[in-house]
């Protein structure tokens, strides 16, 4: 199973990360999977209370966040029997419109690819130590205490 997990403290471009992942696998002699499911999450321009959002601050637990992402990814990928898993996650100050998270799963069939991608996204939203703080245009801020609904 091919696994790559990265935390980015500056903005990353999901399509560039995907292209690099694909290239690196091909250089390693690994063919593209027959089915690939991808999810990209970006920062909304609107805060939870409806105000304009300037910046989303993403705090993490250095050391644990990386380990926990790897545990969650390995567990999910093993359960679904997939071939490859790429997770890219932002930390730090993220501007509206920028990508926060990318999950890409390669598998032999579309079912496992799609299910694994969905489940891993939920797992990392609920079980990886990240905390979001919304900074509004007026300089005020608030820590979020939960995820957006599905």
């Amino acid at each position: 199973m091919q696994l790559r997990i990265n935390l980015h403290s500056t903005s990353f471009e999901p399509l560039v990360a995907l292209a690099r992942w694909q290239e690196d696998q091909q250089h390693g002699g690994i063919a593209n999977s027959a089915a690939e499911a991808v999810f990209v999450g970006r920062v909304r321009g609107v805060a939870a209370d409806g105000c304009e959002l300037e910046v989303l601050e993403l705090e993490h637990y250095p050391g644990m966040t990386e380990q926990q992402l790897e545990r969650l990814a390995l567990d999910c990928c093993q359960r679904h029997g997939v071939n490859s898993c790429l997770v890219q996650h932002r930390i730090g100050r993220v501007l509206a419109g920028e990508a926060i998270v990318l999950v890409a799963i390669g598998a032999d069939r579309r079912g496992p690819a799609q299910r694994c991608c969905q489940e891993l996204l939920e797992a990392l939203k609920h079980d990886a130590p990240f905390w979001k703080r919304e900074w509004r245009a007026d300089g005020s801020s608030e820590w979020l205490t939960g995820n957006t609904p599905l």
Partner: protein
Amino acid sequence: MAAPCAQEIRILLFAGLREQAGWAEQQWPADPNGASTLTPRQLWSMLQLPGDLDRQVRVAINRQFADADTPLKPGDELGFLPPISGG
């Protein structure tokens, strides 16, 4: 020989919990003989941390989620994690 801080328990707070408590990290002396065991729940009370441990906070020991009643060992890293919102 133990590492310099191996006799202590390192306690970490995050995000809103860190700001409410007013600190990010503390070292707590541990019993080197392990004669008296200390749990995250006991430390939560002794440190007078804000909020409801069982309902609002998750405990991590050495960077793994753990039960609040797990006995701590000298050198352990204990994290109190407020509600997570990643992805």
